[in-house]
């Protein structure tokens, strides 16, 4: 039998039966069905989680925090002092959280060197690159190289600080408020804030101001 024939037969086979998922998909299904049967998990809760995050809830909650910190110095002070408590004012929760403020002379970058710890409740799903071994190791070894790859320019005199997230402590970067946004309300300001700016792989949000106008 030629390779072409066997491919064709495999194709017909696929058409006759329900599409057979690959091994990890079958194992995931097996795992979920066993956990549900044993009462260890509620399948409705699993489905709700998948629905919420597959659509990618995105970074809007994080954006609200940043916008509030730009417009309310007292809130910013509370946020930098104890972020987990401060964000409750916005009816948000995120375990143990620390906020790090970018300034002219300091740039912050967040990584999880172990796995992919990330403030999902504030930023949505972590981007693919955040989970890659390349980012997890390079962010620590060569943060300026990583920033350069993302098109972030930081001068030699700007200090780059890298923060390693863990299961118990997550970080959020507060990017600098771009010029030309005086008088904007929080909602409009929040729309400027990108996911990457709150991880630290985006620094200058002024490019977003023109498109928001």
């Amino acid at each position, binding site marked *: 039998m030629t390779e072409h024939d066997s491919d064709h037969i495999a194709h017909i086979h696929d058409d006759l039966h329900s599409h057979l998922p690959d091994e990890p998909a079958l194992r995931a299904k097996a*795992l979920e069905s066993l956990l549900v049967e044993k009462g260890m*998990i509620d399948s409705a809760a699993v489905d709700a989680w998948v629905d919420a995050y597959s659509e990618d809830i995105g970074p809007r909650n994080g954006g609200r925090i940043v916008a509030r910190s730009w417009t309310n110095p007292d809130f910013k002070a509370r946020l930098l002092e104890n972020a987990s408590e401060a964000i409750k004012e916005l009816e948000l929760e995120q375990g143990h959280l620390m906020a790090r403020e970018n300034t002219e002379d300091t740039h912050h970058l967040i990584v999880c060197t172990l796995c992919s710890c990330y403030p999902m409740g504030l930023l949505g799903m972590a*981007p*693919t690159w955040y989970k890659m071994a390349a980012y997890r190791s390079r962010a620590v070894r060569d943060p300026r190289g990583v920033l350069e790859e993302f098109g972030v320019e930081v001068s030699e005199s700007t200090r780059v600080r890298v923060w390693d997230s863990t299961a118990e402590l997550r970080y959020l970067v507060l990017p600098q408020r771009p010029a030309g946004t005086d008088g904007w309300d929080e909602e409009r300001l929040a729309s400027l804030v990108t996911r990457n700016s709150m991880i630290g792989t985006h620094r200058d949000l002024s490019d977003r101001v023109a498109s928001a106008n």
Partner: protein
Amino acid sequence: MNQPDALGPLVQNDNSPVFDEGWQAQVLALAFNLVERGQFTSVEWSEALGAELEKSKQRGEPDNSQSYYQAVLTALEGLLDAKKSQHIELIDERTEAWREAYLRTPHGKPVEL
């Protein structure tokens, strides 16, 4: 700078979909729900996933989301196994049962065990 071929390996993924396949969302959802229900702690989860990611790297597997979610699945199975959840021993058997269910179900019909 903005030419795709000039982009580095990290930025190339900047706008990738969060999940390539449904099972990837499913295993992450299982892990988060198990942590939420106190079946294991977030620290145990993070350490188990970190260890699997390291093994994947040592084996020279590609640094991409497929390997990442495979590590999530393996970490989840390993953690449940370590917790002596008896039913986890049944996972191979149950995986086969689902495979057979897919193979015997005519196209377009709901797949049931």
